């Protein structure tokens, strides 16, 4: 006769076996996420499931903000109104000339048969919270794929560029700030058009302009703008200001630190810019032609 042990003793696999199983599963997920980005659908499903809990957790804070906005005093509103009027007047001139310039620009581009660089549809969004992950610099905004946000769009504030949409969920989107360690932007010195690539330093406040020759013509206070050659950022958005330059003859490159122009941590409202139209693909045909064309031609393209 068989003696089955009582129910009480059934505990399933040993803890160490379970730990091994789940640890391996986690490592698999991490590799899939970090290397191949395969984990996105699962992440989205979980994010949607957690969304209500998150909203409940946020509810007291939203309520406080609403109450505070409701009780904004009249004097404050009047002051703000006056300021905004003044600002509007100041900007009226720019706005009026802008129309004319835009038309002229369009005509010139047509002459050059170049396609228009900016798409005009931009999405207004508010930052819901700063990303909680202490290992990266991200913020979460309140517009997602349902409002038309796509991965890769540039995000700006009134002063300049703040980052790029890197992950889109149906109702929220994640913006990687330009100060994130894994973030790089092709930039240009506004003063003389010198091009370079700015990397986030990861400390949350500065960027680094890497691989600039030690004798490159760059000075403290120079403004860096996006160069637009990556096809991600529209051209000419202010990015950062050079704050410190260390030229050491022992190294081939100068060490250049920059401060973002848009106070990265100080605002709530942002603008998600429409996607830049993709440049026509670089065909093998023209590549070969360029090689045949010799060095002079190639270097000219490098300069322009």
């Amino acid at each position: 006769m068989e003696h089955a042990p009582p129910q009480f003793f059934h505990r399933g696999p040993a803890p160490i076996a379970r730990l091994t199983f789940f640890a391996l599963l986690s490592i698999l997920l991490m590799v899939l996420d970090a290397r191949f980005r395969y984990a996105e659908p699962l992440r989205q499903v979980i994010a949607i499931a957690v969304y209500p809990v998150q909203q409940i957790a946020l509810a007291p804070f939203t309520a406080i903000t609403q109450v505070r906005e409701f009780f904004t005093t009249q004097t404050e509103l009047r002051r703000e109104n006056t300021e905004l009027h003044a600002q509007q007047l100041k900007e009226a001139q720019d706005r009026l000339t802008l129309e004319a310039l835009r038309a002229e620009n369009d005509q010139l581009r047509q002459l050059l048969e170049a396609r228009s660089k900016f798409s005009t549809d931009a999405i207004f969004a508010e930052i819901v919270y700063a990303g909680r992950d202490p290992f990266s610099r991200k913020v979460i905004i309140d517009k997602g794929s349902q409002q038309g946000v796509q991965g890769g769009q540039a995000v700006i504030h009134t002063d300049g560029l703040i980052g790029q949409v890197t992950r889109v969920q149906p109702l929220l989107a994640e913006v990687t700030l330009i100060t994130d360690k894994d973030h790089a932007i092709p930039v240009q010195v506004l003063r003389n058009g010198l091009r370079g690539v700015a990397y986030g330093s990861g400390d949350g406040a500065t960027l680094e302009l890497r691989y600039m020759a030690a004798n490159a013509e760059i000075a403290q206070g120079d403004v860096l703008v996006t160069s637009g050659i990556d096809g991600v950022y529209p051209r000419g958005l202010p990015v950062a200001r050079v704050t410190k330059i260390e030229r050491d003859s022992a190294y081939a490159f100068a060490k250049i630190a920059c401060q973002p122009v848009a106070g990265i941590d100080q605002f709530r409202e942002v603008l998600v810019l429409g996607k830049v139209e993709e440049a026509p693909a670089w065909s093998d045909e023209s590549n070969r032609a360029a090689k045949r064309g010799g060095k002079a031609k190639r270097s000219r393209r490098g300069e322009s």
Partner: protein
Amino acid sequence: MILDRPAQHLLLPAKAGFIAATVAVALAFNLLPWQDLRGVPDLLALVLTFWCVHQPRKMGIGIAWALGLVMDASNGALFGQYALAYALLAYAALALHRRILRFTLWQQAAHVLVLLLASQVLMLAVRLASGGTYPGLAFFVGSLLAAALWPVASYVLLIPQRRPVNVDDTTPL
């Protein structure tokens, strides 16, 4: 010494519903709009550890792992980072649960501190290996605070189990 053990109540069995509710509250706390998680006690890890120690049959590595995934998805962290850390945390708590309960509350808190720090070190190692930024020593302050909350958690989370069996009008809670 066994004789030094602090006096203990005879506790009622824990209700699965209450465990789930406390875990949900802790999760909601973690999902609050923190600027970043440095210096914020990870209440979910604390509650998980607590139930692993007190109710090892009702809380386990699998649940901890799944909750870790939820944290990963909503934090925008590397997918699997929290899951791995929580699974390890749950395993260590399960392995130590008989030992931990023999100590006084503050001594238990010291054990828990070590467990929480170990899980954070694991997360740090994973993120640094995958190219993250070193977040500074402030990253570990959250664990200190969470461990300091252990006595509070022990009091609060055991309230339903400490209720007398026969409830009448004179019962306080």
